[in-house]
């Protein structure tokens, strides 16, 4: 099975050179936090990721969790690993200090989370979901609920889940039908929820379910959904888990990937109603979900990077161990020397580094938005669907390339290459499908403000292209020309959308996917070009990265420009066609 080596140097480079981590921390008034500390934190997390979580990854794939009498038994070894994760304080990274958290920046958490997901995505989903529950409670919970549940959720002593989806309410949550009947100081919750990640397990003494349900007098549709806390075990007078609540896992889904993560069908109220407590105000549940959405969607986008990084490392190793073909002197040739294999490795490496640059940059904008920076708020909105949509789509291609590098051995399960490919497949689906991200980007994030946020981004990309074009370095000038040409195509397509799609909803839907992918390749290329610029600057001075790394950064950006940037003009051409043949056939003709 493949090992995992945390990409410490690239994480440090992106944090210091692209994000400006030290400046960010001083803007956030985190006096004790700086790049040096961040590197220590990332490195220490990397040890647990590579030495404890990564070796469990294939176990989770092969020995699925099981369900018996409403209780889920997770894969052997996961509970010990989770215990170690909690004891080492990793669940506390971003939580507020008042509730036992370390209050570290979101972007540092992003760098650390990248490693958890690379090491073992099924495992890492559990703390990721808890994080969502924590955010919901911090933003909307009463002081009493916070005091009762936050410290244990932040420490990781308990885990959290998000119970949104129902059999008839997926992307369209307006159709939520679960009921909440008021009874004294609490509510009786009943209904069935599906696709509940880590909905049940035996790793902790309690599980805190956040559940969307309707009050009896609630208005129909999206404005009638409320958010409730439903603990697996009700708390006694001392706040300790005691009596089992009326909630159980009635079955587990059989999935193509992330086998180690139990995906539960949860049943609430089979015996009269699960006791739940209202979070915030009645009928505002869905709007509360939206406050956490940017972070949640970026977290899933990050998983696209994580799984691709793991796949790349495996491909890189295998391609040096596998010999095929003979050179003129009769020596065997490692397949890494064959051009087509090298192309695939470079596509993976440059794609990953572009994604890392984008994921960290977008995560840092969330941090800056928290300080009240209005530009950052706008940028977060624009980048989030790109991070989620583009990165998870690119992950499909890159994890597939790992299998291709392995040849027939990749199609065989024992190699482990297939697991990454299967695990990756959920990413463009959950937390808003690619289609939803694409509509969000073209609608709410582009047409709604008449392209204002988009034009700001384009101006930033133009500025980078000009810096590159004015460089004394010939390769940077070439990169600048490639970026500028890509930007020109994308800008034309953007203008076409603004001119034509506002009045034609059909058109907007037709071209939304191409627009999403185009913007992904563009922002990824922009940030990788910025990385190359920094790398060349740094080479002239005493630096901590080493010139090998910096040269590679430039080479990686140049490859990206040849391999990925031309895709922008293809997408742009499709967009400007309006893709008006999408509905050319009647349903009967399909």
């Amino acid at each position, binding site marked *: 099975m493949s090992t995992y080596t945390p990409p*410490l140097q690239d994480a440090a480079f992106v944090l210091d050179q692209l994000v400006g981590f030290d400046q960010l921390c001083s803007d956030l008034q985190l006096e*004790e936090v700086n790049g040096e*500390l961040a590197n*220590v*934190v990332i490195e*220490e*997390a990397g*040890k*647990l990721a590579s030495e404890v979580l990564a070796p469990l990854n294939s176990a989770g794939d092969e020995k699925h969790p099981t369900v018996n009498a409403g209780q889920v038994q997770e894969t052997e070894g996961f509970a010990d690993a989770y215990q*170690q994760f909690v*004891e*080492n*304080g*990793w669940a*506390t*990274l971003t939580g507020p200090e008042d509730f036992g958290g*370390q209050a570290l920046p979101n972007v540092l958490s992003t760098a650390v989370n990248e490693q958890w997901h690379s090491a073992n995505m099924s495992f890492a989903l559990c703390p990721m979901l808890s994080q969502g529950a924590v955010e919901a409670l911090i933003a909307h919970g009463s002081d009493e609920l916070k005091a009762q549940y936050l410290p244990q959720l932040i420490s990781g002593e308990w885990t959290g889940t998000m119970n949104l989806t129902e059999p008839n309410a997926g992307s369209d949550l307006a159709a939520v039908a679960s009921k909440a009947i008021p009874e004294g100081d609490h509510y009786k919750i009943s209904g069935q929820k599906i696709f509940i990640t880590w909905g049940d397990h035996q790793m902790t003494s309690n599980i805190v379910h956040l559940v969307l349900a309707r009050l009896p007098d609630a208005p129909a549709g999206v404005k009638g959904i409320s958010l409730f806390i439903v603990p697996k075990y009700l708390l006694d007078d001392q706040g300790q888990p005691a009596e089992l609540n009326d909630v159980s896992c009635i079955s587990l889904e059989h999935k193509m990937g992330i086998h180690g993560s139990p995906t539960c069908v949860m049943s609430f109220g089979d015996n009269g109603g699960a006791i739940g407590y209202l979070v915030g105000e009645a009928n505002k549940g869905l709007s509360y979900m939206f406050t956490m959405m940017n972070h949640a969607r970026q977290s899933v986008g990050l998983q696209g990077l994580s799984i691709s990084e793991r796949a790349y490392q495996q491909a890189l190793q295998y391609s040096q161990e596998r010999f095929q073909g003979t050179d003129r002197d009769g020596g065997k040739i490692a397949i890494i020397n064959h051009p087509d294999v090298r192309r695939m490795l470079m596509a993976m490496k440059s794609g990953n580094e572009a994604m890392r640059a984008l994921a960290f940059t977008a995560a840092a904008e969330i941090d800056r938005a928290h300080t009240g920076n209005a530009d950052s708020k706008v940028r977060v909105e624009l980048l989030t669907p790109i991070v989620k949509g583009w990165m998870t789509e690119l992950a499909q291609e890159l994890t597939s390339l790992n299998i291709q590098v392995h040849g027939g051995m990749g199609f065989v399960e024992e190699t482990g290459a297939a697991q990454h490919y299967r695990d990756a497949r959920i990413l463009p689906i959950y937390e808003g499908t690619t289609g939803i991200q694409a509509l969000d980007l073209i609608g709410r994030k582009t047409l709604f403000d008449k392209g204002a946020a988009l034009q700001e981004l384009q101006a930033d990309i133009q500025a980078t292209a000009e810096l590159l074009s004015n460089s004394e370095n010939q390769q940077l000038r070439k990169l600048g020309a490639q970026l500028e040409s890509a930007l020109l195509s994308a800008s034309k397509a953007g203008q076409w959308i603004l001119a034509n799609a506002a009045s034609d909803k059909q058109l907007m839907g037709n071209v939304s996917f191409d627009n999403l992918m185009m913007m992904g390749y563009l922002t990824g290329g922009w940030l990788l070009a910025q990385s190359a610029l920094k790398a060349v600057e740094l080479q002239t001075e005493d630096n*901590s*990265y*080493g010139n*090998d*790394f910096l040269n590679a950064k430039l080479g990686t950006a140049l490859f990206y420009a040849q391999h990925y940037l031309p895709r922008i003009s293809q997408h742009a051409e499709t967009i400007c066609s309006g893709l008006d043949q999408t509905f050319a056939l009647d349903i009967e003709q399909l």
Partner: protein
Amino acid sequence: MKILVAVKRVIDYNAKVRVKADNTDVDLSNTKMAINPFCEIAVEEAVRLKEAGTASEIVVASVGPKSCQEQIRAALALGADRGIQIETEDSPESLNVAKLLAKVVEEEQPELIIMGKQAIDSDNNQTGQMLAALLGMPQATFASEVSIADGKAQVTREVDGGLQTLAINLPAIVTTDLRLNEPRYAALPNIMKAKRKPLDVKTPADLGVELKQHTQLLKVTEPAERNAGILVSSVDELIEKLKNEAKVI
């Protein structure tokens, strides 16, 4: 009881070691560095003694340039209480380190000094022994088990062919072997706390030690590359090659 632990900054055991082009030394530029694994075991043992209530304070010392503060901070994150960096140039030789540590011991008066049995870069296995000689203290090297009671340390040592158990009076010097313990990972809250723990910087002059060079590094070369193997078609051919080519029989 106060414990002094000495830690050394060395190349990370996972990193590939490169030799400088002019063969003057190992090339450490942009190489990942870490606490010497034996020293990390020493820190872990001290922390366990503190957790067991046997020790009350753990002081961690390192000799080297400012960069070795990273390793002191790492030890503080594992549970040491405060640090002392003794500022010198890169790679001071063992006797100089022992002399500097001897002065630190005189100032700090620890009852137990725990160190790695050797560092994975120079593999000398001598600093602990030198320190014991300079201080006139008992020593127990290659420890695989340590227990403290009644002013004595009982130390199980890994020796050729088995285990030897010694009882030595405190204060004493114990050097660690690989199997003494398995070091923990640093916990996030402790990494944060380590930033706030005191770390003093001293110079050899502060300690009244004059550094002298007793050895000189002449050259470093890479190990000879292993030649590719060949398949022989018969036992006779094998014997022929072993006799005439390899000249081993």
